C-alpha cells in the first residue's frame, strides 16, 4: 500500500538525558500509526548503542545497518527491516560496532530525502547527549518531540535540549511526559504536568503514566500499543492521534479529595513568597 499523506513529516524524538523513554516512545507511536495504515519508517541513530531493534522485537531480522547504507555496501531498501505485525512499518537499524562520529548530518538528510516520497512519517530515534549524535539526529527533522520524566535532572536536560532546538530554528517542539505517577503528584512528591509546562514552556503532546506493563511488553519485544488494557499503550495511541491532527483530551489529574482541594486552595492563598 502507498503512503496516505502528501507531505511527509520527519520527527526527531530527543531528550538530552538517557533512559527517559525515547526509544519506547518512537517504537510505540510508530507502531500505533502503522496500525492505522500510515507508512512509517523509524531510524535508529544511536550508533554504537542501538536499542530500537530490541524494543520493536526485530533484532533477529536485521541484516544491514545505516552505516552500510551510507558507505554504499547496500541500498537503503535492502537495509530497511519490515515488521511482520505491521506491514506499513519499516526500521533502519543503527550500527553497533561503530560510533556517532562515523556519520554526518548531510548523510542523514540524504537518507531522509530518499525516504520522504515513500513514507508518511519518518521517526528518528536520537541518542542521549548534545554532541555529534544529537546534531546528526536533528539535521533532517521538521519537528521535534522532547521526552522527559517528572524528575529534576530530566527536566534540566530537556530544557537544555529545547534551547538547542530553538537555536537550530525548530518551530514545532512538543513535549511528552513519560512515567507520571498521579498518586505521587497528589501527595506532593512528584512534579505535576503544570509544573513541567511552567518550566519548559512548550506544547504538550502526551502524558504517559507509569505502567509496569511497559517492561513486560519490552521483555517480549512487543509494542505496548497492542495491549488494549494498558494505560501507557492508550497514552501512546493518543499521541499518535494528536500527531494526525486529532483533538484528544488529556486525562485530568486534578485533586479529587475534599481535603486535597482545601489544601491546594490554602496553599495558593497563603504560601506565596
Amino acid at each position: 500500500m502507498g503512503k496516505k499523506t502528501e507531505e511527509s513529516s520527519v520527527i526527531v524524538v530527543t531528550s538530552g538525558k538517557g533512559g527517559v523513554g525515547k526509544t519506547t516512545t518512537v517504537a510505540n507511536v510508530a507502531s500505533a500509526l502503522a496500525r492505522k495504515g500510515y507508512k512509517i519508517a523509524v531510524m535508529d541513530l544511536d550508533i554504537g548503542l542501538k536499542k530500537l531493534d530490541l524494543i520493536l522485537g526485530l533484532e533477529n531480522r536485521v541484516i544491514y545497518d545505516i552505516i552500510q547504507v551510507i558507505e554504499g555496501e547496500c541500498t537503503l531498501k535492502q537495509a530497511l527491516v519490515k515488521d511482520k505485525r505491521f506491514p506499513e512499518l519499516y526500521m533502519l537499524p543503527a550500527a553497533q560496532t561503530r560510533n556517532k562520529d562515523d556519520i554526518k548530518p548531510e548523510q542523514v538528510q540524504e537518507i531522509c530525502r530518499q525516504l520522504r516520497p515513500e513514507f508518511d512519517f519518518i521517526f528518528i530515534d536520537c541518542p542521549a547527549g548534545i554532541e555529534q549524535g544529537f546534531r546528526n539526529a536533528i539535521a533532517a527533522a521538521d519537528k521535534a518531540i522532547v521526552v522527559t520524566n517528572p524528575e529534576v535532572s530530566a527536566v534540566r536536560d530537556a530544557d537544555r535540549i529545547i534551547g538547542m532546538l530553538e537555536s537550530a530554528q525548530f518551530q514545532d517542539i512538543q513535549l511528552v511526559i513519560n512515567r507520571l505517577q498521579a498518586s505521587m503528584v497528589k501527595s506532593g512528591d512528584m512534579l505535576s504536568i503544570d509544573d513541567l509546562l511552567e518550566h519548559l514552556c512548550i506544547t504538550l503532546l502526551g502524558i504517559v503514566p507509569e505502567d509496569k506493563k511497559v517492561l513486560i511488553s519490552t521483555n517480549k519485544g512487543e509494542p505496548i500499543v497492542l495491549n488494549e488494557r494498558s494505560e501507557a499503550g492508550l497514552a501512546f495511541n493518543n499521541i499518535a492521534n494528536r500527531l494526525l491532527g486529532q483533538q484528544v483530551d488529556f486525562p485530568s489529574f486534578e485533586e479529587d479529595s475534599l481535603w486535597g482541594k482545601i489544601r491546594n486552595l490554602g496553599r495558593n492563598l497563603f504560601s506565596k513568597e
Partner: protein
Amino acid sequence: MLDFLKRIFADSSSRKQANDRLRVVLTHDRTGTSSRLMETLKEEILEVISRHVEIEGRPEVKIIREGRHSALDINIPLKGR
C-alpha cells in the same frame, strides 16, 4: 491569624522543593549566570548608581523569567530630597 493560616498551609512538599530548585537552575542555565555572578552584578551596578545619586532602602537585582525568555530586573529606590 494570617501567620497561623500560612503555617498550616505552608508547602514543604518535595514537589515544591523540586520546583524551587528548578526555577533557579534553569534560569542560570539559560542565561549562563550563577548566584555569585548575580551578587557581583548587584554590587557593581549599585556602585555605579551611587556614584551619581543617593540610594535608599533595599535595592534588588534579579533575573525574571517570562516564558523561555529572561530579563534582568533592576529595582533601585532613590532617596528624595
